[in-house]
């Protein structure tokens, strides 16, 4: 199956791209199909902000703490992370393999004059073109959707500038993740369209570490994220069985 609106590269799985393109217009509806992502957003934004502020010595209470730093958002979708990062002062490049996602993201950001550079591209193309390097690379909830996660992760890591960092978020391949993220979120709660996730492609933290073995990078984490159904809120947690995040820093 080929799509005219699609970028090409080794990390592309055509079925995955088609699935998200169909949902593109709905990205910004906080009560629509991406509602769980909107609910999930504050905890990951807070994590990125706090870790980045620590690494770059910035004040989290400043209006634009990350002024002067470059950020790449891989698999940016409708721009749910790119826009907040631009408001926090980063010079943002957002890439997505789906042209419809990029179209949605551009249309949404434009009236706000956020100055985000959105491109229909992949990590592989960026690296081949000699783009970057970037002080921060965001790799959030993407790796469980790509065809070759090892190659993909190495490519992304090489886009990180010396002294910079990469954020990675994904789902653990555990029975709990199968129960919550696939059966619970897709079938019972109907939070996500069925088929959003393929449990077999979920990755364990040690597999992520393995992908970068022998490479000049250090990994930190995993850091768990848990959902509190009573408060309807996500928060950082020591439980990494379902959602977790890691950071990657170039060595030396």
């Amino acid at each position, binding site marked *: 199956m080929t799509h005219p609106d699609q970028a090409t590269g080794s990390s592309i799985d055509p079925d995955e791209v088609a699935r998200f393109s169909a949902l593109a217009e709905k990205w910004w509806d*906080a*009560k629509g199909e991406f509602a769980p992502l*909107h*609910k999930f*957003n*504050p905890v990951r*934004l*807070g994590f990125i*902000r706090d870790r980045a502020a620590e690494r770059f010595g910035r004040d*989290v*209470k400043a*209006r634009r703490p990350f002024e002067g730093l470059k950020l790449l958002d891989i698999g940016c979708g409708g721009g749910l992370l790119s*826009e*907040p*990062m*631009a*408001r*926090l002062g980063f010079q943002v490049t957002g890439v997505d393999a789906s042209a419809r996602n990029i179209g949605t993201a551009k249309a*949404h950001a434009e*009236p*706000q004059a956020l100055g985000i550079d959105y491109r229909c591209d992949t990590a592989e193309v960026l690296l081949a073109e000699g783009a970057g390097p970037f002080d921060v690379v965001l790799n959030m909830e993407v790796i469980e959707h790509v065809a070759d996660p090892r190659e993909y992760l190495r490519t992304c890591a090489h886009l990180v500038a010396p002294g910079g960092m990469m954020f990675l978020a994904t789902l653990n391949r555990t029975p709990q993740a199968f129960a919550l993220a696939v059966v619970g979120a897709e079938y019972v709660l109907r939070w996500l369209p069925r088929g959003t996730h393929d449990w077999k492609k979920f990755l364990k933290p040690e597999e992520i570490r393995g992908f970068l073995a022998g490479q000049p990078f250090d990994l930190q984490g995993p850091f768990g994220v848990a959902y509190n159904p009573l408060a*309807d809120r996500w928060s950082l947690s020591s439980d990494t069985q379902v959602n977790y995040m890691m950071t990657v820093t170039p060595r030396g």
Partner: protein
Amino acid sequence: MASKTAPQSLKATHDVVIAGAGMSGATFALACAQAGLSCVLVDPQPFESQLAPTFDGRASAIAYASFRQWRALRAGEMLEPHACPIDTILVTDGRSPGAAAGAPTPFFLRFDSVEIADRSEGEPMGWLIENRHIRAALAKAVQAAGIEVLAPAAVASVERDASGAVVTLADGRTLRASLVVGAEGRRSVVREAAGIGTIGWDYPQSGVVATVRMAEPHGNVAHEYFLPGGPFAILPLTENRASLVWTEPRKRADALKVASNEAFQAHLSRRFGDFLGKVEVLGPRFVYPLSLSLAERMTAPRTAILGDAAHGVHPIAGQGLNLGLKDAAALAEVLADALRLGEDIGSEAVLERYARWRRFDNVMLAAATDVFTRLFSNDQPLIRLGRDLGMAAVNRIGPARRFFMQEAGGAVGDLPRLLRGERL
């Protein structure tokens, strides 16, 4: 009402436009400024007119948590000389009050601030402050914080689009912001422009407010008597004065407003003689019709409402202003946190957090106050017996009493940081 499309070309002038520079609106503006949000206060009245002694004759019971917020916002220090601490609250069911009636019924509730001293850090349960002093202190703090004030200026219309709202003033000026906040009280223009409806009803009662000087020291005790015609409160003020808040059937209240000083004084001692002691009436009297009005929602696209614009409650429990101040603290905290995450502060995802946080509190208190009013404005023997037993029971059960005191102090629930006395 559908919103019209705002001109995209207009550049944002502020993060937040706040309609209404009253006590809740000004407090919210101070909190916004502390959070680093640029805001502008718009009010149809000249800002200074609020400071005239005739503008607002009421005094407010300020929960200790609310006062902490003002301290955190640098308005508390100016208020301290005018704030009378409430050390004790006495609630009495006075069936046949007055000089001729003898002792009140033995059933009463007694709340002492020492009982919750561990949780309130030794502060009183609350403070009694005349509204004009509150308004003056907030005005000074707003000025000191460099917050822009457009007054007199009326909001004529609000137009909203995907990325912001445009507020057009009656004189033709326009303001563009990510968010518009309606804090203009019960007849909120912002609420109406957003198409948020209200539910509510009038009570067949009015509140009569007068300031008196007491002959005997009031000892920082607040009294609440439940009389068949409605509740009567003696609220201690500085300089051994007290604010009398007295709810009466509408007609009688209207008559009291126009009565001569002598007639008013005579009426007071006839009704409350033993409770009140000898008093000297100071300054004008004020009469406020009582009503309940609840907004159906706290938010709409690019819009949030707070204070009386969202919920005008019966002042029986002295919680109306405290609710508004809690709204202000919660909304400012939600916006501050969103701003520091880089979120769009006027987006639905952000506003929903505020709505969820405040909705339960507001509806519960309005409902409880309504039930309270109906229960206590009644002379049915069975209802009387029931409520007397209830009050006696609450009084004997320490935990229940401490809960009510903390609720009165505003410390129940998931407390905004400002109400814990922390800066944003």
